[in-house]
């Protein structure tokens, strides 16, 4: 057989060796969300009378340490995006506290501070969007897109902006010589990197990534995940990672919060949550994921029924109509948000007695050529 030649240069410059893994977690709490609620009012009829509420976020509490990745997972309508939008104060929460530790070491409540006070804070929290096609203005060049947050925040000199954009583009492995091109000239993965560069322009502390890889193809998804992990290690970023793909979540997160109908059903360290889930919903979710191995086929039983309506949630535990382990108590009494072991929080009456199947972490599939 012939010798192998090196692949020709592609659009992406070769990656420098990965930065040494620095101590990511400082133990410092960056974000502390307490009893967050967001109810949307339902109006009906001619007089627009209030007829009910959609409990989009219903009593959510969690903390994020500096340098860590917390993933919010759940199905459509579970409130994960609404939670992240409240944290960025893109929408005003109904009640609750969102305590954010600023660069200067002060703690402010993002939920209640005035818009004027919020403005300087916005620099420190940035967002990466899902759709790299609609989140970039097609009439702006990459230079203008990435440079806009700089301009808005007082970098008036064009030269300075160009230099910073160049630096940012290198950081996300885009060629700086392309900065005068328009988004349509880039592929989906490259566009997503433009969005990441824009989010990083102002040296944020917290980056909220809402489904950042779900619009990408598998091969490009892996590149983007690698980039996000690397940026976290080199820049000390903190991620709130909103996603529905458990494989992606498992790959990138330190801790995971599983949401169901506006509430967090379970929150734990990644390994604990995937290996020994305590909430039946988490276990059902894990079992539903199709595993890329035909030998594991047929090991799952689909969860019956549908997600509850957040405007008229069931009595007791919101999950009880679909839960295989529900008892009488679950139908009447709302379970409390409890810590059952250090760092492992669950909202389930039976969390302590149940042993639920998780996912074996050992790699059973090793796609290879032998």
């Amino acid at each position, binding site marked *: 057989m012939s010798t192998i030649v090196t692949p020709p240069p592609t659009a992406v410059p070769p990656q420098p060796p990965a930065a040494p893994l620095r101590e990511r977690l400082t133990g410092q709490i960056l974000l502390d969300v307490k009893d967050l609620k967001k109810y949307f009012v339902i109006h009906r009829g001619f007089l627009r009378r209030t007829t009910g509420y959609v409990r989009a976020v219903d009593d959510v509490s969690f903390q994020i340490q500096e340098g860590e990745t917390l993933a919010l997972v759940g199905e459509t309508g579970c409130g994960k995006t609404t939670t992240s939008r409240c944290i960025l104060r893109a929408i005003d929460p109904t009640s609750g506290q969102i305590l954010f530790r600023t660069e200067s070491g002060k703690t402010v409540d993002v939920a209640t501070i005035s818009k004027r006070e919020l403005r300087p804070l916005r620099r420190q929290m940035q967002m990466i969007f899902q759709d790299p096609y609609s989140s970039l203005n097609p009439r702006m060049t990459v230079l203008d897109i990435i440079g806009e947050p700089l301009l808005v925040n007082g970098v008036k000199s064009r030269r300075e902006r160009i230099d910073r954009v160049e630096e940012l583009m290198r950081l996300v492995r885009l060629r700086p010589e392309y900065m005068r091109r328009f988004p349509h000239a880039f592929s989906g993965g490259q566009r997503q990197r433009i969005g990441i560069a824009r989010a990083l322009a102002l040296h944020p502390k917290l980056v909220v990534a809402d489904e950042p890889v779900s619009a990408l193809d598998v091969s490009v998804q892996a590149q983007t995940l690698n980039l996000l*992990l690397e940026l976290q290690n080199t820049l000390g970023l903190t991620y709130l990672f909103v996603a529905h793909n458990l*494989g992606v979540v*498992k790959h990138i997160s330190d801790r995971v919060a599983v949401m169901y109908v506006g509430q967090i059903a379970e929150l734990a360290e990644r390994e604990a949550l995937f290996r020994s889930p305590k909430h039946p919903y988490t276990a059902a979710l894990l079992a*539903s994921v*199709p595993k*890329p*191995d*035909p030998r*594991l086929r047929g090991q799952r039983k*689909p969860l019956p029924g549908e997600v509850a309506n957040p405007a008229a949630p069931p009595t007791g535990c919101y999950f009880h109509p679909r839960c295989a382990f529900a008892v009488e108590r679950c139908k009447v009494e709302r379970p409390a948000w409890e810590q059952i072991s250090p760092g492992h929080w669950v909202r389930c009456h039976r969390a302590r007695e149940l042993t639920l199947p998780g996912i074996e972490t050992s790699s059973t599939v090793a796609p290879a050529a032998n």
Partner: protein
Amino acid sequence: MPLLSVRDLRTYFVADEGTTRAVDGATFDLYAGKTLGIVGETGCGKSVTARSILRIVERPGRIVSGEILLQRDGGYIDLAKLDPDGREIRRVRGGEIGLVFQEPMTSFSPVHTVGDQVIEAIQLHRRLDKARARARAIELFRMVGISRPEGRLDEYSWQLSGGLRQRAMIAMALAAEPRLLIADEPTTALDVTTQAQILELLRDLQRKTHMAIMLITHDLGVIAEMADDVVVMYLGRVVEHGPVDQIFHAPKHPYTQALLRSIPGIQHEARVKLPTISGSIPHPFARPAGCPFHPRCALVMACAAAPDGVCCDHHEPELITVEEGHSVSCHLYRKKGAAVPLALESAR
């Protein structure tokens, strides 16, 4: 004897800016009671393949060559030769071959009830009066697991949840008891728990009706769960074709191998660097010469290095059978009997 046999199908889109070879020589067979998974990334031609079979390729796309042979009464008819607006293809489309689309939201009309739409589909292929057709629609809804089918028939698609809508879509596709169901990303827009229900439903229906399923998806997990045989496509070409276990446990094509390695699995180690495929999928007008995957391939062979002057950047590889039922289009396997080239081993 295959139910449907696609032979060297080519569907091109000819525009002023250039020609897009959306499907460029696809060959595969579908059998009754079996599921063929077609997997690939954006622009690999998997959907156009399905649309070609049903002859619903939009202009300026057209089938330029190849055969699509559908078994009928012991013989075969070539769907590629039929008039796309003719009576004959309309008997096949929705009749012998049912179709389920990705977006259940847009595939129903919002101004008619789902019942009316399903009844219309039934009456197109069966001579039934309105009342009988309605009874049949109720029966179909029950079969796909929709509770209170009588009431649901009179609802509009936007009143149904995503899962219910997809069930209604499947019911409509099954209206004429098709022998083949083409499901194009049937669960992509759904949540995982709903996805599991729909996949289970498809399996269940296949057991009952013995229909063939052509399942198109980009999700290798869904393929592993459902398919008997797998076709991997890249830029309009079939790069690998084989039994599902072989594809996942002994993939041959460098693209298949790389694709499998790059899935962030729930069974893999977390927070380590994922192996990636360099670059991105080329623009259809800038299609690479030779093997379409060669600019991204880690095992690419240049002319000087190739044993007999056949190299990846000049010569397009043919599908070669490496084992019974397992074929791959890659120059690495050109030498007969060379199951795993040495180079492949050392490169890993």
